[in-house]
């Protein structure tokens, strides 16, 4: 097989043809500034508002509750900064979250801690799931807000968002969810799910990079991160990325309209991968098997190191990612895998394969043929594996 097999769709996705096509007119003919009053500007403005309405529709929100951002990270930052300030004004400086949030949430929380907030990080257990009961127990009179991700980006576990939102609603605590991995992949309904604020990113569902949105329920004040013009109801300055935003709305429409067909296909491919790869001795699926994104596979292989697996698989035309420390500058393995209770040495040997509907069964078969070979080669060369097989060290898996 000569072509590249892309199995890292949780990192980013290929744009769909429709999403690319939708963007082009706004890069060529319709280049007007939506704030301009002549026709070229107003046409762009109309396209922008159509996109807003479309995105709102797919989330079951109102168009005016959608704020366009540069992506998921900005949406997370704006949501958390806003909720922190709103809480602080009422003397509430306690936050509830989880230990395995995306860094766009975690790093804001760390900063807020330095600014005098107290954060309760809920245990995500071995299966990568929190419960609504945990949230309820953690709520205090001074809780400013709750932020729990919809689906985890590394292990793919889907949190009981609706139940968590219900608890928050009952206690009148605002609830934000980072839904970057969920929107366009599994049903998300801000009303039914009791969500007050939600972050999403276009490039996770075959849309363009550099575009995202923040849903903020009417009545919840937002702070501005970027000062300037009056775009986005004065909550986010800067001339809008019209082509990107239109393209995002088209990609989301496509993803939502095809969701059930995609899900059916993906679950089949995912389960084939999980069943095949966990046949490798001393391997383990990370994250709950059932409450899991249709696209996500995350497996630890004992005795090997993730980066060498990625580099080797890359040479075989397979693109995946790892929870290994060596893929980052920090030298620490994935905080998500550590939060699930994996020892450092096992977290280093983890692979994440995240699929999209563009993957084929033939590709899955090729992956299932190559990964066991790669694991065997690197175990053969690993003194850590030698220690495990000779009994000098105990197996964890």
């Amino acid at each position: 097989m000569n072509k590249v097999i892309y199995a890292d769709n949780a990192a980013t996705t290929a744009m769909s043809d429709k999403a690319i096509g939708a963007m082009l007119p706004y890069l060529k003919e319709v280049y007007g500034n939506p704030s301009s009053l002549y026709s070229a500007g107003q046409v762009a403005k109309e396209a922008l508002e159509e996109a807003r309405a479309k995105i709102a529709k797919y989330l079951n929100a109102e168009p005016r509750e959608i704020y366009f951002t540069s992506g998921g990270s900005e949406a997370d930052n704006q949501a958390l900064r806003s909720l922190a300030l709103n809480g602080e004004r009422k003397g509430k400086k306690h936050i509830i979250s989880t230990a395995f949030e995306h860094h766009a949430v975690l790093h804001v929380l760390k900063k807020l801690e330095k600014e005098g907030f107290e954060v309760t990080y809920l245990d995500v257990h071995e299966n990568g799931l929190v419960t609504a009961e945990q949230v309820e127990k953690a709520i205090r009179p001074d809780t400013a807000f709750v932020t729990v991700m919809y689906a985890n980006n590394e292990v793919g576990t889907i949190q009981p968002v609706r139940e968590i939102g219900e608890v928050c609603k009952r206690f009148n605590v605002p609830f934000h969810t980072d839904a970057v991995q969920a929107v366009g992949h599994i049903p998300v309904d801000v009303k039914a799910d009791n969500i007050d604020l939600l972050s999403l990113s276009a490039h996770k569902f075959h849309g363009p990079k550099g575009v995202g949105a923040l849903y903020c329920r009417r009545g919840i004040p937002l702070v501005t991160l970027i000062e300037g013009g009056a775009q986005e109801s004065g909550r986010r300055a800067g001339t809008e990325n019209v082509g990107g935003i239109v393209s995002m709305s088209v990609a989301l429409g496509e993803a939502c309209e095809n969701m059930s067909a995609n899900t059916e296909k993906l679950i089949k491919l995912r389960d084939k991968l999980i069943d095949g790869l966990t046949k490798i001795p001393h391997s383990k699926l990370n994250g709950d098997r059932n409450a899991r994104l249709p696209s996500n596979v995350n497996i630890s292989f004992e005795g090997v190191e993730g980066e060498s697996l990625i580099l080797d698989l890359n040479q075989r035309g397979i693109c995946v990612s790892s929870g290994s420390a060596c893929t980052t500058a920090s030298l620490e393995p994935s905080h998500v895998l550590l939060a699930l209770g994996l020892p450092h040495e096992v977290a280093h040997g983890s692979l994440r394969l995240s699929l999209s509907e563009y993957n084929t069964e033939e590709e899955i078969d090729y992956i299932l043929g190559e990964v066991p070979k790669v694991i065997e080669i690197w175990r053969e060369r690993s003194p850590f594996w030698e220690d495990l097989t000779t009994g000098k060290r105990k197996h964890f898996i």
Partner: protein
Amino acid sequence: MALYSEKVMDHFTNPRNVGKIEDADGIGEVGNAKCGDIMKIYLKIENDIITDVKFNTFGCGSAIASSSMATELIKGKPVSEALELTNKAVAEALDGLPAHKMHCSVLAEEAIRAAVKDYYDKNGIAYDESQFPEPHNEEEEHDFAEEE
């Protein structure tokens, strides 16, 4: 620019001297699993010359390449020369390593030194202790890195 040089990728893809020497004269093992890298070097020494060298490494691409290059650099050399091998020389021979991967070349230097020390100890050869400083405590370094 790619993360790794072509030379690193060459030594990663086709590692030289990978394996074990069953009747090795000296074995050195450094690093730890918790930090994601363990390097084990086997030496065969005759008349003070390193006649054969093999390695086994658990680690990332640069750890594999550093082990491979380090074994190439000391093969056929007198033991005294192997002791002079620096991590910088290993990294340079690989056309450089990314800054946060330099510790991999340090491991290679330390693994070789540990293997020579093992050879000296096994054969009752006297040596100056100062030639063999304690290997870096990686965990401490990692804690530091995490703080940043």
